[in-house]
């Protein structure tokens, strides 16, 4: 196991998967982010995975329960669902003026250290959000894509430095709708097309899964960026509205 800056939790898979596949009682596969946080995860994670397991159980039992009144379609086995295979590859490799090699590694495994993410959000000037909420959001996102910069030191192996420089994530109902949230790239790496690469990868993964309603809420400064990626503002008058508690 290479000595990276991330702390890998003990239940990580021994093979080359970069994230643990947590299989619930009826074989639904999840992506879970590897986290390096001292926040007590046990209770909440179990609660969430129990909640999710019970959603599946209840849908399946709901389908079976009505078998007396109408033709049953066989319950959908999770194996039929295409699994989101994690990808990790070198997007760019270049040599710095000082001779060290830098690789920019793209990953869709959701391999995000929540502290690194918090630091990156600070760098781009975003307001702080509670770490536990960030962690939960990453865990329950349909897909999380990241860019890490790995500086390969000349000579000794195993002394690489890995730094999170970009991320994007999408939530989805796995069938029709997806929304892209939290797209960010380290300011010192902007302007190189890395953000575009992240979004394109997300879109490809969603379209491959036949998810057609891909939406996002863009700050005015980045509307042009998304337009160049094929997004249209307020298409056919569709606008997003947000809930505002009156009191």
């Amino acid at each position, binding site marked *: 196991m290479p000595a990276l800056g991330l702390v890998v939790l003990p239940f990580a898979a021994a093979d080359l998967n970069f994230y643990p596949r947590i299989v619930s009682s009826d074989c639904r596969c999840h992506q879970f982010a590897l986290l390096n946080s001292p926040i007590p995860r046990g209770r909440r994670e179990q609660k969430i995975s129990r909640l999710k397991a019970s*959603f599946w159980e*209840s*849908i399946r039992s*709901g*389908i079976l329960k009505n078998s007396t009144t*109408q033709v049953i*379609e066989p319950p*959908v086995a999770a194996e039929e*669902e295409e699994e989101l295979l994690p990808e990790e590859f070198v*997007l*760019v490799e270049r040599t710095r003026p000082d001779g060290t090699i830098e690789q920019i590694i793209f990953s869709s495994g959701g391999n995000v250290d929540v502290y690194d993410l918090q630091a990156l959000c600070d760098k781009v000037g975003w307001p702080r*959000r509670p770490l536990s*909420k*960030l962690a*939960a*959001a*990453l*865990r*329950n*996102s349909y897909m999380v894509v990241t860019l890490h910069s790995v500086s390969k030191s000349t000579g000794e192996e195993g002394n690489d430095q890995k730094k999170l420089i970009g991320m994007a994530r999408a*939530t*989805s*109902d*796995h*069938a*029709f*709708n997806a*929304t892209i*949230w939290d797209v960010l790239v380290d300011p010192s790496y902007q302007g190189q*097309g890395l953000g575009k*690469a992240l979004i*394109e990868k997300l*879109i*490809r993964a969603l*379209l491959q899964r*036949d998810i*057609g*309603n*891909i*939406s*996002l*809420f*863009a*700050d*005015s400064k980045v509307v042009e960026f998304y*337009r160049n*990626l*094929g*997004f*249209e503002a*307020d*298409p056919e*008058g*569709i*606008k*997003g*509205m*947000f*809930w*505002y508690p009156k009191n």
Partner: protein
Amino acid sequence: MAVATAVQVGNLPSKFRRFLPSPPKIAAQIKPNSAPPPPLFISTNPSHVNPHHLRELYVVCNHSCHRFPTIDAAGRVDPIDAHKLRTAVSHSSVVVSVFTKLEFVASQSSNSSSVVGIGGNWIRRVAPVTPENGRLIGFGRAVSDLGLTASIYDIMVHPAFRGRGIGRMIVKRIIRMLINRDIYDIAALCSGKERLFFRGCGFGEDMLGSTTMMYAPSLSSYSKDEQMISAGRKLLAFPPPRDFQK
């Protein structure tokens, strides 16, 4: 509370209706339903949703899961893929369904106002409506990352039961479920008509001034060999693979 008022309006004799506070402008644009209110059962348990009844409800409400659905000459959207619908519902963090008694659905469609008979009917009349003995007439769902954000989709009410505040009740229940999990950033994509409805539910334009955008690439900028999928009447081309070696 606006919701309570809307649901109880049908109960009051007409001479007392004058003394009610006038309904908000938005609600007034929706014609209030003056038939006696049906007994309702609202559930947040996804197992109460029968997939076949749900699909029928989509058809009756002429609602499509695609934002840009194909509409035929009669104005009907194309039917939903049952398997995809099941997947979507099972992956929704919040699922709300509203049921009413079967007799009410039947009487609405046949326009008869009286439920005749005693004896055998009596048990059925006094028994409370449950998801097992009732008919699905309202539905709504939300997808969330259970940490920061949520999006509401597919709010629908059977056409014969609109104007009673059932839709608003569904949205309020979804919001309550999300707030219980500490999520306050709740979004809903709306077309023109839906915008009025959501405004009445307490939604507004984004205060941070963000622009809603959807993936809808213009096909002219993509070569014909590019992979595509269809989402309703939209053809969505895959973004071309990018060469990065510098």
